[in-house]
């Protein structure tokens, strides 16, 4: 695993690798190098299976983190490729030509985070939501509780609590 990272570091701009487990490593790669690195991993290093592709919203840093988790079944190892995007203009190169299911993941990311993948098939079609008009719901600045209370009729008589506060009141009142 270490050897792999060293090989990658020679070719691509790979930074802060974290060995989470013996068979699982996460590292960050520069956005410009990302698709080249992923193609390299798939073609040369045997990481042929894309487990998933998802995003994390780092609202405070103004960044989106894309995570591609690639799996090498011969080596029994995973690498998580982190790519950071600018939160203002989140655009990323598509990898749908490498894996068929990547198009589906990218459709979901476009809908749920608003990250664009130009060229990905059916990227603009709604995937899960229908008639959504607010900001993409998985972004951190979207308040689901507020939206729910404004849109759907809360039943009178049901007092709704914030789960964390309520647990504190009920279970640990003295703290």
């Amino acid at each position, binding site marked *: 695993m270490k050897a792999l990272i060293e090989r990658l570091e020679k070719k691509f701009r790979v930074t802060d690798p974290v060995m989470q487990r013996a068979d699982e490593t996460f590292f960050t790669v520069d956005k410009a190098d990302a698709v080249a690195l992923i193609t390299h991993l798939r073609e040369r290093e045997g990481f042929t299976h894309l487990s998933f592709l998802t995003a994390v919203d780092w609202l405070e840093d103004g960044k989106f983190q894309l995570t591609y988790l690639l799996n090498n079944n011969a080596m029994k190892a995973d690498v998580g490729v982190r790519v950071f995007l600018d939160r203002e203009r989140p655009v990323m190169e598509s990898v749908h030509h490498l894996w068929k299911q990547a198009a589906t993941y990218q459709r979901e990311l476009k809908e749920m985070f608003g990250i664009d993948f130009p060229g990905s098939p059916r990227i603009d079609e709604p995937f*899960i*939501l*229908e*008639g*959504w*008009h*607010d900001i993409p*719901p998985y972004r951190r600045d*979207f308040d*689901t*509780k507020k*939206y*729910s*209370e404004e*849109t*759907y*009729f*809360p*039943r009178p008589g*049901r007092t*709704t609590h914030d789960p964390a506060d309520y647990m504190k009141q009920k279970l640990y009142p003295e703290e």
Partner: protein
Amino acid sequence: MSSKDLEKRRVTGPDGEQFDVDPMQDYFCQERPKEHEPANRIWESFLNWARAESLWILGYGTGCGAIEMRPLMTPRFDAYRYGIQWRPTPRQSNVLVIGGYLSVKTLKRVIRSYEQMQGPKYVVALGSCTINGGMYWDSYNTINRLDKYLPVDIYITGCMPRPESLLAGFEALKKLIREGKGEGQNLYARNFDEYKANQKKIIRDWDMPDYNW
């Protein structure tokens, strides 16, 4: 169906002739639902008995609750004993079982299914999520109260309700019907505008006629 399919358009037929198509006029009927008066008392109570003893459920698993519908219909609980049967098409069913939470996307289909059913028709709502949102009370995509959108006859509580409580719920529904209180369809027709306003408030891309039977 997307809203694009429902726009007026000019079509060239197989024989080269051109003609206009307005799907909203051609495929749907835009009439309001009507209230139906019950027949005279004795005859109606006989009919109500028959309606109660023959509940045909629409086979639409809208949420988690659908998972307990299979045990309900199979040897352990066997709801067929009580005249509860299962039909695949809304036209032939009388009971719409809402199996738990409804996302906005499903609610649209549920409304269409409900309106296509022939009356008297009943709505049974399973689980806490149909009552007040339950587990998903703060979710941006699931409704909190079903009775704002459809006339609900019976709520069955639990997350999820066990088949025993489903059977008890259906018995309660039967009792309501025998007493002549299962008039959800008339309620819907009477308060049609209110229901429609609520439905349209959350279904943003309303691309169907107001009442599509």
